[in-house]
């Protein structure tokens, strides 16, 4: 039985004396979180379909250190970062794409101070590029045509790195009706998981942040909430469950939307 899709590792590439065009940094959520694995799979399939020469680190990949750094543990962050840089530089990696804005921010902005210099892209930017180059031609129509969709800005993509248009360009290519939430782009409301909040219970308050954000998303009347971040995906999906809307409203990552359009989803 032949495998339709391939995921070569850097170790395999190096053994074959090959150098991939881009490293797909999967991230911890993309590797372990069952829901986000679907995003990893969708993006991998897209890379396969377009014929991108890519590789992953596989078991050699470890946490970038982002949550440790945001929670104050600079030692642990730097331990992770320096080890990762050794691996990345060992393979002479030049270009990285990741579906996690936290990994994206850390690799792009914080690794250079520790000697790791790479061209880092978020998968929304990568997909935007593929669409612009005509390497992905949207089928449009079908399940998506004219349907309302809203996009939730991830803080680490938006405010942290001023990437607002790439994810929107991806959505626009899908022939869907993009309805913005009241707080969007630079004023977008956080899902509640950034700054290592993903890994602890929220502090005492009157409401959970993801519920506040989900309510805002539901107000747009969109049946699809698009996200570009594993933590946002979890938080928004939990918010939808909290509102008992999981039958009507789905939370999908940009890569999943493209994969569906291209008939690549399982």
């Amino acid at each position, binding site marked *: 039985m032949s495998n*339709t*899709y391939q*995921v070569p590792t850097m170790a395999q590439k190096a053994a074959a004396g090959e150098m991939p065009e881009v490293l797909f940094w*999967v991230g*911890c959520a993309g*590797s*372990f*979180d069952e829901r986000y*694995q679907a995003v*990893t*799979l969708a993006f*991998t399939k897209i890379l396969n379909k377009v014929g991108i020469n890519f590789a*992953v680190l*596989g*078991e050699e990949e*470890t946490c970038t250190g982002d*949550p*440790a*750094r*945001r929670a*104050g*543990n*600079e*030692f*642990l962050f*730097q*331990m*992770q970062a*320096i080890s990762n840089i050794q691996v990345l530089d060992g393979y002479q990696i030049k270009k990285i794409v990741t579906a996690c804005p936290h990994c994206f*921010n850390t690799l792009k*902005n*914080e690794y250079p*101070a*520790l000697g790791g210099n790479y061209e880092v892209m978020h998968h929304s930017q990568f997909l935007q590029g593929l669409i612009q180059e005509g390497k992905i031609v949207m089928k449009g129509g079908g399940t998506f045509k004219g349907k309302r969709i809203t996009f939730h800005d991830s803080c680490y993509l938006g*405010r*942290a*790195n001023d990437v607002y248009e790439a994810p929107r360009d991806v959505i626009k290519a899908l022939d869907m009706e993009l309805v913005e939430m009241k707080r969007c782009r*630079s*004023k977008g*409301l*956080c899902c*509640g998981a*950034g*700054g*290592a*909040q993903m*890994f*602890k*219970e*929220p*502090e*005492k*308050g009157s*409401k*959970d*942040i993801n519920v*506040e*954000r989900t309510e805002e998303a539901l107000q747009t009347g969109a049946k699809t909430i698009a996200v570009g971040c594993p933590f946002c995906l979890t938080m928004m999906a939990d918010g939808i469950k909290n509102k008992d809307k999981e039958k009507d409203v789905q939370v999908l990552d940009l890569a999943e939307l493209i994969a569906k359009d291209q008939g690549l*989803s*399982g």
Partner: protein
Amino acid sequence: MSSLPQILFLLVLGAAGFILYKRISYIRKTILLGRPLARNDRPKERWKTMALVAFGQQKMFKRIGPALLHLIIYVSFIVINLEVLEFIIDGLAGTHRIFASALAGFYTLAMNVFELLALGVLISCVAFLVRRNLMNVPRLSSAELKGWPGLDANLILWIEILLMIAILTMNATDQLLAYRGVEGYIPLGGLWISSSIQGLFEGLSSGTLLFLERFAWWFHIIGILGFAIYVTYSKHLHIFLAFPNTWYSNLEPKGKMPNMEVVTQEVKSMLGLQAPPEATDQSEIGRFGAKDVTDLSWVQIMNAFSCTECGRCTAECPASITGKKLSPRKIMMDTRDRAEEISQSKASGKDGNDDGKSLLGDYISQEEINACTSCNACVEACPVNIDPLSIILELRRYTSMEESGSPAQWNAMFQNVETSFAPWKFPPTDRFNWASKLNQEEKKPTNNE
């Protein structure tokens, strides 16, 4: 003419200048309690940021209503202060409206512009007073504004109203005196706004008018000097500090946290990548992160002095919106309060920061810093580019690295990263298991396509 008013004026000006000098030195010293930080790179970009954000008030215009009212006050502040130059020359030289004859028609035009702006300021300040006290704007009525901060905000508006009334009264009475031919007063040929209130003063004797005109003149100039001194005690310092504060903005992407070089040295030596730092270096290593304002950088303390407590940060903060204890504005207010406490204590020869108190603990609680999602909404919202997040993250660094005092779930996460190289407790050998699902799904019957 007696030169008594001139002597008096010189004394007032000298005293105000002396007090201001003292206050500015005090503020400078307090800001420099912070750690050194070199932020002089990319000067072109810095001047541009200052021009757009401070001078051009770019970020104010995210909320158009308050932005317009604020713009009127701001423009008036700059323009009307040109008139203060004349006040000072007149005061010292014993002249009256020294520029009037030289500038002739242009002078009248300028006075009319000043009056129009003064009226604009009056209207804006009244609108702000109503908005602050009668309309329920959440960010203007939060708990952290109880007491002095709220009083401070109102006082500034009242002082500005009084100063503007003084200008208009002065012009109205001045022109009445000029029309009556009183010596030294120059008819300016029509000041539209003050002439409309002349009716209030028409019945008064020239002597009373003279007194009123002089009173308004002195009230205005002493008021302005007093205001300048008051500002140094107030949240209103932003009128000056917005400029350096935006010049020293963080120009890096907002998501980037500064690297701790001391930690890098230790980590590299632990990993055997470089020789351990010399023992003598160790003694120079201060605290990791920040417990008190003296652990912060001077820019962070300047941020605190530049804060005018508008609360746009808190209004945008997801933690604050959902009822958590965190308020980025309070972080800045606390930072300034603590910096001033240390500075005053030092000035009076006391313990300074060795008073057993600290920013973290006595002013800002763990609960507050633990609520932050590091989303940068506060940083984005600030009209003068203050960065409350950077302070929160420094406090977290101290908590984690010096006290191991992070929330238990974070400590568990740290442990997972250390042992499983992921924030969740999965065996690292399972990291690539997802790949086995890649071609599995194909075989499953699907109904989505």
